[in-house]
Protein backbone atom coordinates (compact mmCIF):
# COMPACT_ATOMS: atom_id res chain seq x y z
CA UNK A 1 0.00 0.00 0.00
CA UNK A 2 1.40 3.37 -1.02
CA UNK A 3 2.68 5.81 1.59
CA UNK A 4 0.10 8.54 1.37
CA UNK A 5 -2.84 6.15 1.88
CA UNK A 6 -1.52 5.10 5.28
CA UNK A 7 -1.16 8.68 6.41
CA UNK A 8 -3.79 11.12 7.54
CA UNK A 9 -3.71 14.51 5.80
CA UNK A 10 -3.77 17.89 7.48
CA UNK A 11 -6.05 19.56 4.97
CA UNK A 12 -7.20 23.15 4.86
CA UNK A 13 -9.68 23.60 2.02
CA UNK A 14 -9.17 26.66 -0.22
CA UNK A 15 -12.10 28.97 -0.71
CA UNK A 16 -14.30 28.61 -3.74
CA UNK A 17 -17.80 29.45 -4.96
CA UNK A 18 -19.69 26.37 -5.97
CA UNK A 19 -23.29 27.19 -5.17
CA UNK A 20 -24.19 26.19 -8.70
CA UNK A 21 -24.07 22.52 -7.72
CA UNK A 22 -26.58 22.95 -4.90
CA UNK A 23 -28.76 25.22 -7.02
CA UNK A 24 -28.85 22.61 -9.76
CA UNK A 25 -29.68 19.86 -7.27
CA UNK A 26 -32.48 21.96 -5.80
CA UNK A 27 -33.83 22.74 -9.25
CA UNK A 28 -33.98 19.11 -10.33
CA UNK A 29 -35.33 17.86 -7.01
CA UNK A 30 -38.09 20.49 -6.97
CA UNK A 31 -39.04 19.56 -10.48
CA UNK A 32 -39.12 15.85 -9.70
CA UNK A 33 -41.36 16.34 -6.71
CA UNK A 34 -43.80 18.18 -8.95
CA UNK A 35 -44.55 15.19 -11.14
CA UNK A 36 -48.03 14.00 -10.33
CA UNK A 37 -47.97 10.24 -10.19
CA UNK A 38 -51.23 8.92 -8.86
CA UNK A 39 -54.25 10.31 -7.15
CA UNK A 40 -54.28 9.48 -3.52
CA UNK A 41 -57.51 8.01 -2.13
CA UNK A 42 -57.81 10.83 0.37
CA UNK A 43 -57.81 13.51 -2.35
CA UNK A 44 -60.82 15.77 -2.54
CA UNK A 45 -63.59 15.58 -5.11
CA UNK A 46 -61.90 18.11 -7.38
CA UNK A 47 -59.21 15.57 -8.18
CA UNK A 48 -61.78 13.22 -9.57
CA UNK A 49 -63.21 15.57 -12.14
CA UNK A 50 -62.57 14.42 -15.69
CA UNK A 51 -59.16 15.58 -16.91
CA UNK A 52 -60.40 16.51 -20.38
CA UNK A 53 -63.02 18.82 -18.89
CA UNK A 54 -60.48 20.44 -16.63
CA UNK A 55 -58.08 20.88 -19.52
CA UNK A 56 -60.66 22.45 -21.85
CA UNK A 57 -62.22 24.71 -19.24
CA UNK A 58 -58.87 25.85 -17.87
CA UNK A 59 -57.80 26.81 -21.37
CA UNK A 60 -61.04 28.63 -22.14
CA UNK A 61 -60.94 30.41 -18.81
CA UNK A 62 -57.41 31.72 -19.21
CA UNK A 63 -58.22 32.76 -22.77
CA UNK A 64 -61.26 34.74 -21.67
CA UNK A 65 -59.28 36.17 -18.79
CA UNK A 66 -56.64 37.39 -21.18
CA UNK A 67 -59.15 38.87 -23.62
CA UNK A 68 -61.31 40.56 -21.06
CA UNK A 69 -60.96 44.27 -20.39
CA UNK A 70 -63.67 44.35 -17.78
CA UNK A 71 -62.29 44.72 -14.29
CA UNK A 72 -65.42 43.12 -12.88
CA UNK A 73 -65.10 40.01 -14.99
CA UNK A 74 -61.40 39.65 -14.25
CA UNK A 75 -62.06 39.96 -10.54
CA UNK A 76 -64.94 37.50 -10.72
CA UNK A 77 -62.88 35.04 -12.71
CA UNK A 78 -60.05 35.28 -10.21
CA UNK A 79 -62.46 34.66 -7.36
CA UNK A 80 -63.80 31.60 -9.14
CA UNK A 81 -60.30 30.30 -9.66
CA UNK A 82 -59.32 30.90 -6.03
CA UNK A 83 -62.50 29.10 -5.06
CA UNK A 84 -61.47 26.03 -7.02
CA UNK A 85 -58.04 26.33 -5.42
CA UNK A 86 -59.75 25.99 -2.08
CA UNK A 87 -60.93 22.56 -3.13
CA UNK A 88 -57.43 21.18 -3.36
CA UNK A 89 -55.47 19.45 -0.64
CA UNK A 90 -53.54 21.55 1.83
CA UNK A 91 -50.17 20.67 0.33
CA UNK A 92 -51.26 21.61 -3.19
CA UNK A 93 -52.84 24.83 -1.96
CA UNK A 94 -49.61 25.79 -0.28
CA UNK A 95 -47.61 24.99 -3.39
CA UNK A 96 -49.90 26.99 -5.66
CA UNK A 97 -50.04 29.88 -3.21
CA UNK A 98 -46.26 30.16 -3.17
CA UNK A 99 -46.08 30.20 -6.97
CA UNK A 100 -48.74 32.91 -7.17
CA UNK A 101 -47.10 34.93 -4.44
CA UNK A 102 -43.71 34.98 -6.13
CA UNK A 103 -45.21 35.66 -9.57
CA UNK A 104 -47.29 38.44 -8.03
CA UNK A 105 -44.24 40.13 -6.59
CA UNK A 106 -42.40 40.00 -9.89
CA UNK A 107 -45.43 41.18 -11.82
CA UNK A 108 -46.00 44.11 -9.48
CA UNK A 109 -42.35 45.13 -9.75
CA UNK A 110 -42.47 44.99 -13.54
CA UNK A 111 -45.77 46.82 -13.79
CA UNK A 112 -45.06 49.41 -11.11
CA UNK A 113 -43.39 52.00 -13.38
CA UNK A 114 -46.25 51.79 -15.84
CA UNK A 115 -48.87 52.01 -13.11
CA UNK A 116 -47.24 54.98 -11.44
CA UNK A 117 -47.04 56.87 -14.71
CA UNK A 118 -50.78 56.87 -15.18
CA UNK A 119 -51.58 53.41 -16.49
CA UNK A 120 -52.96 52.25 -13.16
CA UNK A 121 -56.24 50.73 -14.35
CA UNK A 122 -54.75 48.47 -17.02
CA UNK A 123 -51.81 47.53 -14.82
CA UNK A 124 -54.15 46.40 -12.08
CA UNK A 125 -56.12 44.38 -14.61
CA UNK A 126 -52.92 42.84 -15.93
CA UNK A 127 -51.74 41.98 -12.44
CA UNK A 128 -55.00 40.19 -11.69
CA UNK A 129 -54.87 38.39 -15.01
CA UNK A 130 -51.36 37.14 -14.31
CA UNK A 131 -52.35 35.85 -10.87
CA UNK A 132 -55.50 34.18 -12.14
CA UNK A 133 -53.73 32.58 -15.07
CA UNK A 134 -50.98 31.05 -12.98
CA UNK A 135 -53.43 29.89 -10.33
CA UNK A 136 -55.61 28.18 -12.92
CA UNK A 137 -52.69 26.43 -14.59
CA UNK A 138 -51.21 25.29 -11.30
CA UNK A 139 -54.56 23.99 -10.10
CA UNK A 140 -54.83 21.97 -13.29
CA UNK A 141 -51.30 20.61 -12.96
CA UNK A 142 -51.61 19.78 -9.26
CA UNK A 143 -55.00 18.13 -9.39
CA UNK A 144 -54.50 15.92 -12.43
CA UNK A 145 -52.46 12.79 -13.01
CA UNK A 146 -50.01 13.49 -15.79
CA UNK A 147 -51.11 10.42 -17.71
CA UNK A 148 -54.67 11.72 -17.69
CA UNK A 149 -53.50 15.14 -18.85
CA UNK A 150 -51.55 13.73 -21.77
CA UNK A 151 -54.50 11.60 -22.81
CA UNK A 152 -56.83 14.56 -22.56
CA UNK A 153 -54.77 16.22 -25.29
CA UNK A 154 -56.61 13.93 -27.67
CA UNK A 155 -59.38 16.47 -27.54
CA UNK A 156 -57.22 18.81 -29.63
CA UNK A 157 -56.91 16.06 -32.20
CA UNK A 158 -53.35 15.13 -31.24
CA UNK A 159 -52.55 11.75 -32.84
CA UNK A 160 -52.08 8.80 -30.51
CA UNK A 161 -48.42 8.54 -31.28
CA UNK A 162 -47.87 12.05 -29.94
CA UNK A 163 -49.50 11.01 -26.70
CA UNK A 164 -47.02 8.17 -26.55
CA UNK A 165 -44.16 10.61 -27.13
CA UNK A 166 -45.44 12.81 -24.29
CA UNK A 167 -45.72 9.85 -21.95
CA UNK A 168 -42.22 8.70 -22.76
CA UNK A 169 -40.94 12.22 -22.22
CA UNK A 170 -42.35 12.44 -18.73
CA UNK A 171 -41.10 9.00 -17.78
CA UNK A 172 -37.64 9.86 -18.92
CA UNK A 173 -37.67 13.25 -17.30
CA UNK A 174 -37.97 11.27 -14.11
CA UNK A 175 -35.40 8.60 -14.96
CA UNK A 176 -32.84 11.01 -16.36
CA UNK A 177 -33.65 13.41 -13.54
CA UNK A 178 -32.63 10.80 -10.98
CA UNK A 179 -29.48 10.14 -12.97
CA UNK A 180 -28.72 13.86 -13.03
CA UNK A 181 -29.17 14.16 -9.29
CA UNK A 182 -26.76 11.30 -8.68
CA UNK A 183 -24.20 12.92 -10.95
CA UNK A 184 -24.64 16.22 -9.16
CA UNK A 185 -24.19 14.49 -5.80
CA UNK A 186 -21.06 12.80 -7.11
CA UNK A 187 -19.73 16.19 -8.21
CA UNK A 188 -20.58 17.75 -4.88
CA UNK A 189 -18.91 14.97 -2.90
CA UNK A 190 -15.69 15.35 -4.84
CA UNK A 191 -15.74 19.16 -4.64
CA UNK A 192 -13.30 19.27 -1.79
CA UNK A 193 -11.35 22.37 -2.74
CA UNK A 194 -11.14 24.89 -5.52
CA UNK A 195 -12.24 23.92 -8.99
CA UNK A 196 -10.32 25.99 -11.52
CA UNK A 197 -12.29 24.52 -14.38
CA UNK A 198 -15.73 24.76 -12.87
CA UNK A 199 -17.33 26.15 -16.00
CA UNK A 200 -16.61 22.80 -17.63
CA UNK A 201 -18.08 20.72 -14.79
CA UNK A 202 -21.75 21.17 -15.61
CA UNK A 203 -21.19 20.82 -19.38
CA UNK A 204 -19.41 17.54 -18.60
CA UNK A 205 -22.44 16.32 -16.66
CA UNK A 206 -24.72 17.43 -19.47
CA UNK A 207 -22.56 15.57 -21.99
CA UNK A 208 -22.67 12.42 -19.88
CA UNK A 209 -26.44 12.87 -19.58
CA UNK A 210 -26.76 13.15 -23.34
CA UNK A 211 -24.79 9.96 -23.92
CA UNK A 212 -26.92 8.20 -21.33
CA UNK A 213 -30.08 9.46 -23.08
CA UNK A 214 -28.86 8.17 -26.42
CA UNK A 215 -28.05 4.81 -24.91
CA UNK A 216 -31.43 4.53 -23.21
CA UNK A 217 -33.18 5.56 -26.40
CA UNK A 218 -31.60 2.69 -28.25
CA UNK A 219 -32.49 0.23 -25.48
CA UNK A 220 -36.07 1.49 -25.30
CA UNK A 221 -36.44 1.18 -29.04
CA UNK A 222 -35.14 -2.40 -28.94
CA UNK A 223 -37.51 -3.26 -26.11
CA UNK A 224 -40.47 -1.76 -27.93
CA UNK A 225 -39.61 -3.61 -31.10
CA UNK A 226 -39.18 -6.88 -29.25
CA UNK A 227 -42.68 -6.45 -27.93
CA UNK A 228 -44.14 -5.86 -31.35
CA UNK A 229 -44.34 -2.07 -31.62
CA UNK A 230 -44.70 -1.03 -35.25
CA UNK A 231 -45.48 2.68 -35.08
CA UNK A 232 -49.17 2.41 -34.28
CA UNK A 233 -50.44 3.19 -30.83
CA UNK A 234 -53.95 3.22 -29.50
CA UNK A 235 -54.67 5.14 -26.38
CA UNK A 236 -58.19 4.76 -25.10
CA UNK A 237 -59.82 7.43 -23.06
CA UNK A 238 -63.21 6.68 -21.64
CA UNK A 239 -65.41 9.65 -21.13
CA UNK A 240 -68.16 9.18 -18.61
CA UNK A 241 -69.70 12.17 -16.90
CA UNK A 242 -70.20 11.95 -13.20
CA UNK A 243 -72.09 14.29 -10.90
CA UNK A 244 -69.00 16.32 -10.10
CA UNK A 245 -68.28 16.71 -13.82
CA UNK A 246 -71.73 18.20 -14.39
CA UNK A 247 -71.40 20.62 -11.50
CA UNK A 248 -67.93 21.65 -12.62
CA UNK A 249 -69.08 22.18 -16.21
CA UNK A 250 -72.10 24.13 -15.07
CA UNK A 251 -70.05 26.48 -12.94
CA UNK A 252 -67.60 27.07 -15.76
CA UNK A 253 -70.35 27.74 -18.30
CA UNK A 254 -71.74 30.34 -15.92
CA UNK A 255 -68.42 32.16 -15.77
CA UNK A 256 -68.06 31.96 -19.55
CA UNK A 257 -71.53 33.40 -20.01
CA UNK A 258 -70.66 36.26 -17.69
CA UNK A 259 -67.73 37.16 -19.95
CA UNK A 260 -70.21 38.23 -22.55
CA UNK A 261 -72.45 40.05 -20.12
CA UNK A 262 -70.11 42.01 -17.89
Amino acid at each position, binding site marked *: *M*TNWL*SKKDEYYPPKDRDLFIDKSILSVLTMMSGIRWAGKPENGVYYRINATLKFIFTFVLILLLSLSQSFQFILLCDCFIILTMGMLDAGDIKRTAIVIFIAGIFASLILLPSALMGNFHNSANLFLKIIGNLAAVNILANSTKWSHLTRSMKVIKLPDIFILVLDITIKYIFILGEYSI*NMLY*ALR*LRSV*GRNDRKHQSIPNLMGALFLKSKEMAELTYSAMECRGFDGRYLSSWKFRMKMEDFIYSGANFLVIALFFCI
Partner: protein
Amino acid sequence: MNNIIELKNINYGYSSSSALKNINLGIEEGDSVAIIGPNGSGKSSLLKLMNGIIFPDSGEYLFRGKIIDSQNLNDKTFLKKFHKSIGFVFQNSDSQLFCQNVYEEIAFGPRQMQFSEDEINSRVRDCLEMLCIDHLKHREPYHLSEGEKKKVAIAAVLALNPEVLVLDEPMNGLDPRIKRFMKELLIELNKAGKTIICATHEFEYIGISYYFA
Protein backbone atom coordinates in the same frame (compact mmCIF):
# COMPACT_ATOMS: atom_id res chain seq x y z
CA MET B 1 -15.10 4.67 22.78
CA ASN B 2 -13.45 6.60 20.06
CA ASN B 3 -16.15 6.56 17.47
CA ILE B 4 -15.40 8.26 14.20
CA ILE B 5 -19.01 7.86 13.19
CA GLU B 6 -21.88 8.01 15.62
CA LEU B 7 -25.58 7.84 14.85
CA LYS B 8 -27.99 8.56 17.67
CA ASN B 9 -31.72 7.90 17.36
CA ILE B 10 -31.76 8.63 13.66
CA ASN B 11 -35.12 8.75 11.97
CA TYR B 12 -35.50 9.37 8.28
CA GLY B 13 -38.53 8.70 6.18
CA TYR B 14 -40.27 9.31 2.92
CA SER B 15 -43.83 10.58 3.13
CA SER B 16 -45.60 7.29 3.74
CA SER B 17 -42.98 4.81 4.86
CA SER B 18 -40.11 5.34 7.19
CA ALA B 19 -36.76 4.43 5.65
CA LEU B 20 -34.74 4.62 8.86
CA LYS B 21 -36.28 4.18 12.27
CA ASN B 22 -34.47 4.81 15.52
CA ILE B 23 -30.99 3.98 14.31
CA ASN B 24 -28.20 3.89 16.85
CA LEU B 25 -24.75 3.06 15.58
CA GLY B 26 -21.17 3.62 16.55
CA ILE B 27 -18.23 2.91 14.26
CA GLU B 28 -14.67 3.15 15.46
CA GLU B 29 -11.79 4.36 13.36
CA GLY B 30 -10.22 1.44 11.55
CA ASP B 31 -13.35 -0.71 11.66
CA SER B 32 -14.52 -2.68 8.70
CA VAL B 33 -18.29 -2.74 8.64
CA ALA B 34 -20.92 -4.36 6.45
CA ILE B 35 -24.47 -3.08 6.31
CA ILE B 36 -26.58 -5.94 5.13
CA GLY B 37 -30.25 -6.35 4.51
CA PRO B 38 -32.83 -6.86 1.80
CA ASN B 39 -33.54 -4.35 -0.96
CA GLY B 40 -35.56 -1.42 0.26
CA SER B 41 -34.41 -1.78 3.84
CA GLY B 42 -32.89 1.69 3.88
CA LYS B 43 -29.21 0.83 3.32
CA SER B 44 -28.72 3.43 0.60
CA SER B 45 -30.46 6.09 2.68
CA LEU B 46 -28.15 5.34 5.57
CA LEU B 47 -25.07 5.69 3.40
CA LYS B 48 -26.33 8.94 1.89
CA LEU B 49 -26.95 10.23 5.38
CA MET B 50 -23.42 9.35 6.44
CA ASN B 51 -22.11 11.39 3.52
CA GLY B 52 -24.18 14.44 4.25
CA ILE B 53 -26.31 14.21 1.13
CA ILE B 54 -29.50 13.85 3.14
CA PHE B 55 -30.23 14.82 6.71
CA PRO B 56 -32.23 12.95 9.34
CA ASP B 57 -35.70 14.03 10.35
CA SER B 58 -34.66 13.56 13.95
CA GLY B 59 -31.63 12.36 15.82
CA GLU B 60 -27.97 13.22 15.54
CA TYR B 61 -25.17 12.22 13.23
CA LEU B 62 -21.69 12.88 14.55
CA PHE B 63 -18.53 12.61 12.52
CA ARG B 64 -15.38 12.86 14.63
CA GLY B 65 -17.54 14.29 17.36
CA LYS B 66 -18.96 17.10 15.23
CA ILE B 67 -22.63 17.19 14.39
CA ILE B 68 -23.31 16.90 10.68
CA ASP B 69 -26.45 18.82 9.81
CA SER B 70 -27.46 21.24 7.10
CA GLN B 71 -26.51 24.20 9.28
CA ASN B 72 -22.96 23.07 9.94
CA LEU B 73 -22.47 22.06 6.34
CA ASN B 74 -23.34 25.61 5.30
CA ASP B 75 -19.81 26.48 6.35
CA LYS B 76 -18.09 25.79 3.05
CA THR B 77 -14.70 25.08 4.61
CA PHE B 78 -16.20 22.54 7.00
CA LEU B 79 -18.21 21.01 4.16
CA LYS B 80 -15.13 20.50 2.00
CA LYS B 81 -13.09 19.06 4.80
CA PHE B 82 -15.92 16.68 5.56
CA HIS B 83 -16.22 15.49 1.97
CA LYS B 84 -12.47 14.97 1.84
CA SER B 85 -12.55 12.87 5.00
CA ILE B 86 -15.27 10.51 3.89
CA GLY B 87 -15.37 9.09 0.37
CA PHE B 88 -18.47 7.58 -1.20
CA VAL B 89 -18.51 5.06 -4.02
CA PHE B 90 -22.00 4.93 -5.55
CA GLN B 91 -23.78 1.80 -6.58
CA ASN B 92 -24.08 3.03 -10.13
CA SER B 93 -20.64 3.87 -11.48
CA ASP B 94 -22.06 5.70 -14.50
CA SER B 95 -23.39 8.61 -12.51
CA GLN B 96 -20.10 8.93 -10.67
CA LEU B 97 -17.82 9.45 -13.65
CA PHE B 98 -18.07 12.80 -15.35
CA CYS B 99 -14.65 13.68 -16.72
CA GLN B 100 -13.38 13.27 -20.22
CA ASN B 101 -10.81 10.56 -19.55
CA VAL B 102 -9.73 8.32 -16.70
CA TYR B 103 -6.66 10.40 -15.87
CA GLU B 104 -8.75 13.56 -15.45
CA GLU B 105 -11.33 11.63 -13.45
CA ILE B 106 -8.76 10.58 -10.88
CA ALA B 107 -6.97 13.94 -11.00
CA PHE B 108 -10.18 15.84 -10.25
CA GLY B 109 -9.87 15.57 -6.47
CA PRO B 110 -6.15 16.37 -6.16
CA ARG B 111 -6.64 19.31 -8.54
CA GLN B 112 -9.29 20.70 -6.23
CA MET B 113 -6.86 20.31 -3.35
CA GLN B 114 -4.48 22.56 -5.26
CA PHE B 115 -1.71 19.99 -5.67
CA SER B 116 1.08 20.90 -8.02
CA GLU B 117 1.07 19.27 -11.43
CA ASP B 118 3.83 16.88 -10.35
CA GLU B 119 1.97 15.92 -7.19
CA ILE B 120 -1.17 15.29 -9.21
CA ASN B 121 0.78 13.14 -11.61
CA SER B 122 2.26 11.08 -8.84
CA ARG B 123 -1.03 10.68 -6.99
CA VAL B 124 -2.87 9.60 -10.14
CA ARG B 125 -0.12 7.17 -11.05
CA ASP B 126 -0.33 5.55 -7.62
CA CYS B 127 -4.10 5.17 -7.89
CA LEU B 128 -3.89 3.76 -11.40
CA GLU B 129 -1.33 1.19 -10.27
CA MET B 130 -3.25 0.25 -7.16
CA LEU B 131 -6.36 -0.50 -9.15
CA CYS B 132 -4.41 -2.01 -12.07
CA ILE B 133 -5.96 0.36 -14.59
CA ASP B 134 -2.85 2.12 -15.85
CA HIS B 135 -3.63 1.03 -19.39
CA LEU B 136 -6.96 2.87 -19.22
CA LYS B 137 -5.65 6.29 -18.33
CA HIS B 138 -6.41 7.91 -21.70
CA ARG B 139 -9.72 6.13 -22.18
CA GLU B 140 -13.13 7.71 -21.77
CA PRO B 141 -14.90 6.39 -18.67
CA TYR B 142 -18.10 6.16 -20.63
CA HIS B 143 -16.78 3.38 -22.86
CA LEU B 144 -15.39 1.09 -20.17
CA SER B 145 -16.85 -2.17 -18.89
CA GLU B 146 -18.70 -2.30 -15.58
CA GLY B 147 -15.70 -3.65 -13.70
CA GLU B 148 -13.35 -1.09 -15.17
CA LYS B 149 -15.78 1.73 -14.35
CA LYS B 150 -16.01 0.53 -10.77
CA LYS B 151 -12.23 0.54 -10.49
CA VAL B 152 -12.03 4.06 -11.90
CA ALA B 153 -14.72 5.25 -9.47
CA ILE B 154 -12.84 3.77 -6.51
CA ALA B 155 -9.56 5.21 -7.75
CA ALA B 156 -11.15 8.65 -8.14
CA VAL B 157 -12.45 8.55 -4.57
CA LEU B 158 -9.22 7.15 -3.11
CA ALA B 159 -7.29 9.97 -4.76
CA LEU B 160 -8.77 12.26 -2.11
CA ASN B 161 -7.18 10.09 0.58
CA PRO B 162 -10.32 9.91 2.70
CA GLU B 163 -10.19 8.42 6.20
CA VAL B 164 -13.48 6.65 5.75
CA LEU B 165 -14.50 4.82 2.61
CA VAL B 166 -18.21 4.18 2.10
CA LEU B 167 -19.26 1.81 -0.69
CA ASP B 168 -22.82 1.11 -1.85
CA GLU B 169 -23.03 -2.49 -3.10
CA PRO B 170 -19.58 -2.45 -4.66
CA MET B 171 -19.73 -6.05 -5.86
CA ASN B 172 -22.87 -5.60 -7.97
CA GLY B 173 -22.45 -6.73 -11.53
CA LEU B 174 -18.77 -7.64 -11.23
CA ASP B 175 -17.27 -10.90 -12.43
CA PRO B 176 -15.68 -13.28 -9.85
CA ARG B 177 -12.13 -12.24 -10.72
CA ILE B 178 -12.75 -8.57 -10.11
CA LYS B 179 -14.76 -9.39 -6.98
CA ARG B 180 -11.73 -11.19 -5.59
CA PHE B 181 -9.56 -8.21 -6.49
CA MET B 182 -11.95 -5.80 -4.76
CA LYS B 183 -12.14 -7.88 -1.62
CA GLU B 184 -8.37 -7.99 -1.33
CA LEU B 185 -8.12 -4.27 -2.02
CA LEU B 186 -10.62 -3.43 0.72
CA ILE B 187 -8.79 -5.65 3.19
CA GLU B 188 -5.51 -3.91 2.31
CA LEU B 189 -7.07 -0.47 2.67
CA ASN B 190 -8.44 -1.44 6.05
CA LYS B 191 -5.01 -2.62 7.12
CA ALA B 192 -3.60 0.74 6.06
CA GLY B 193 -5.92 2.38 8.56
CA LYS B 194 -9.00 3.23 6.53
CA THR B 195 -12.45 2.75 8.00
CA ILE B 196 -14.49 0.74 5.52
CA ILE B 197 -18.29 0.80 5.42
CA CYS B 198 -20.04 -1.33 2.82
CA ALA B 199 -23.66 -1.88 1.99
CA THR B 200 -23.44 -5.29 0.53
CA HIS B 201 -24.82 -8.78 0.10
CA GLU B 202 -21.37 -10.30 0.35
CA PHE B 203 -19.37 -9.96 3.50
CA GLU B 204 -16.65 -12.57 3.73
CA TYR B 205 -14.04 -9.90 4.14
CA ILE B 206 -15.85 -7.80 6.67
CA GLY B 207 -15.13 -7.73 10.39
CA ILE B 208 -18.40 -6.43 11.83
CA SER B 209 -21.83 -6.58 10.26
CA TYR B 210 -24.98 -4.64 11.05
CA TYR B 211 -28.19 -6.20 9.92
CA PHE B 212 -30.95 -3.99 8.60
CA ALA B 213 -34.52 -5.13 8.39
